[in-house]
């Protein structure tokens, strides 16, 4: 197994003819992902890379191509509608790579997905990879190695750094999920922790957080209560200066400032091995695995 994507993933790429979409579609195909369709309105009937049929709508890609997963590379202003369209077409898992999606758009997207039971990863995320099986998004396949560590992260390139450290020390990964760093995202740490806990091919979990918000603290509480597998964690931004916040409402709502120190304490309290630097991931995991 693995989480969220595997050999059964049949992918439609929304924005397959765009600059990023076409580049990464080729990379995904090369990695072995079953890219069954692309969508670019107005280019229906054409073929991408001499093998992938292009449709005008996501619905057609589901009826005719049998797509069950969608990845979105469209410009930010069209991203919310692309998510609505994929959910409406009956897609089970939507991965939104697009960066710069307005947060108010996301407040409208979330209840729409909840009502349909659709899973969203992102937006503004690198996507996910189950090494040796499937990759959806932009995580470089060559840095990954098939194995038994689950990785979940709010970051992009920092995730690659952690994967790189693991692979360099022959610690392979079951799945690596970049959940995205925006204020409102679909799948969160807890969703991934729960999936890794249930995945028989995952033995240990590395979670990579950042300053801001309280998701890591809540994830820590979840780990303490519900996760039996060993977890190690990293929080980026220990030296970040406090932001010049304008209003007061942010701090009131979250009830905390979301500093790295606060989050690291929360992880530690939950029995999570806390890394001081990315290179600590390997020795910490070797201790607990």
């Amino acid at each position, binding site marked *: 197994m693995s989480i969220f994507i595997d050999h059964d993933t049949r992918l439609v790429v929304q924005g397959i003819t765009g600059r*990023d979409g076409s580049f990464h579609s080729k990379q995904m195909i090369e990695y072995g992902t079953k890219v069954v369709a692309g969508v670019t309105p107005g280019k229906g009937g054409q073929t991408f890379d001499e093998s992938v049929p292009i449709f005008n709508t996501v619905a057609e890609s589901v009826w005719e191509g049998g797509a069950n997963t969608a990845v979105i590379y469209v410009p*930010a*202003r069209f991203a919310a509608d692309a998510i609505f369209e994929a959910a409406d077409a009956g897609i089970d898992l939507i991965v939104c790579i697009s*960066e*710069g*999606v*307005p*947060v*108010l758009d*996301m*407040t*409208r997207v*979330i*209840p729409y997905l909840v009502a349909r039971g659709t899973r969203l990863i992102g937006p503004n995320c*690198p996507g996910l990879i189950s090494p040796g099986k499937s990759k959806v998004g*932009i*995580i*470089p396949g060559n*840095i990954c190695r098939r194995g038994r560590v689950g990785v979940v*992260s*709010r*970051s*992009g*390139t*920092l*995730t*690659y*750094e952690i994967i*790189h450290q693991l692979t360099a020390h022959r610690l392979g990964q079951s799945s690596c999920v970049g959940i995205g*760093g925006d*204020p*409102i995202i679909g799948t969160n740490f807890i969703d991934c922790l729960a999936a890794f806990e249930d995945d028989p091919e995952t033995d240990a979990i590395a979670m*990579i957080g*950042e*300053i801001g*918000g*309280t*998701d890591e603290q809540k994830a820590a509480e979840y780990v303490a209560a519900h996760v039996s597998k060993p977890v190690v964690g*990293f929080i*980026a*931004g*220990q*030296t*970040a*200066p406090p932001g*010049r916040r*304008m*209003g*007061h*409402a*942010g*701090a*009131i*709502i*979250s009830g905390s400032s979301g500093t*790295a120190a606060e989050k690291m304490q929360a992880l530690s309290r939950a029995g999570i091995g806390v890394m*001081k*630097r*990315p*290179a600590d991931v390997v020795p910490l995991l070797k201790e607990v695995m």
Partner: protein
Amino acid sequence: MNLHEYQARALLAKHGVPVPDGDVASTASDVEKIARKLGSGVVVKAQVHTGGRGKAGGVKLADTPEEARTVADRILGMSIKGLTVEKVLVAPAAEIASESYVGVIVDRESQRAVFMVSPEGGVDIEEVAAKTPEKIFKLAVDPRDGLLPHEAMALSFELYDDVKLVRQAATILQQLYATFVDVGASLAEINPLITTPDGKVVALDAKIAVDDNELPMKPKIAALRDASAEAPSEVTARNAGLTFIKLDGNVGCCVNGAGLAMATMDLVKYYGGEPANFLDIGGSSNPEKVVSALAIITADPNVKSILFNIFGGITRCDDVANGIVTATKRLKLDVPLVIRLTGTNEREAVQILEGAGFSALTDMDEAVKRAVQLAKEGA
């Protein structure tokens, strides 16, 4: 992006929120003219992107136009939390019967816009939340319906007993929500929302923060940006498509991706150094961006070594290498450069760099240690 009080007031007024008369000025003589036109006692308020203006002496009352001029002379050009006051708002001094707080913010937890209101306004609302959380009332808005009239009424009943005031406040809350959605805000607050002795509800001060992701779609809002209120290096960086925050250390950092950039700064500190900045060159790999990044970093005289930490994904290492070579030809670097590159097109990048007389590392810890060491030697 933060808006000034006078800009926020104008946007609220456009949606029907009652705000006092008044105008903005950048010279003391204009302040006098505005005060004369208003024909009453006035308040002169510094327009800077920070709270605590009153405590810092940036908000003053004046009884006459001449006094307004004197007061403005003192406020204009003063520094509040490191920000120079370039503009002041001149408004009639309001008669205040009561002060409340109303605000709406995007809440990560409920994943919705959440209203917050409190009868304890005008003061530091953070303190109210910490000491008397029972005096803050919250309501999450369903984005499909907006703030419904009965919800606005229910919130307003937490502020006032008199139904005449409640009805006015409820209308203002709906107008505040309309403004919030229209400008694409992440925060919009009125503090204080006052009542006057003759029974009117008026927005006395307002703050709006706009979601930066909305700006490409909203050119009129984007045009409200006041670049003079920001650090010049940060403005230059933004125009070059970079995210830059200046810090006080001496190890200049140039990294792709915000998370890795923060982790790099943390590692500089871990090895006993101090980062000079946060700089994220973003996901694309235009060599020109690298040139701009190096120009911004080297403009800081504190910088004693420069560290590149690039993990190629979308960003191609050879593009970054080309940028480094171009930049070092164009700019005269008198501080040492430490380059760590790994990922997409790493081999090509190393060839480019070695051809130009640079060496490249592949290990992050090694690179950070060396950059910290070189900064210490150069200090």
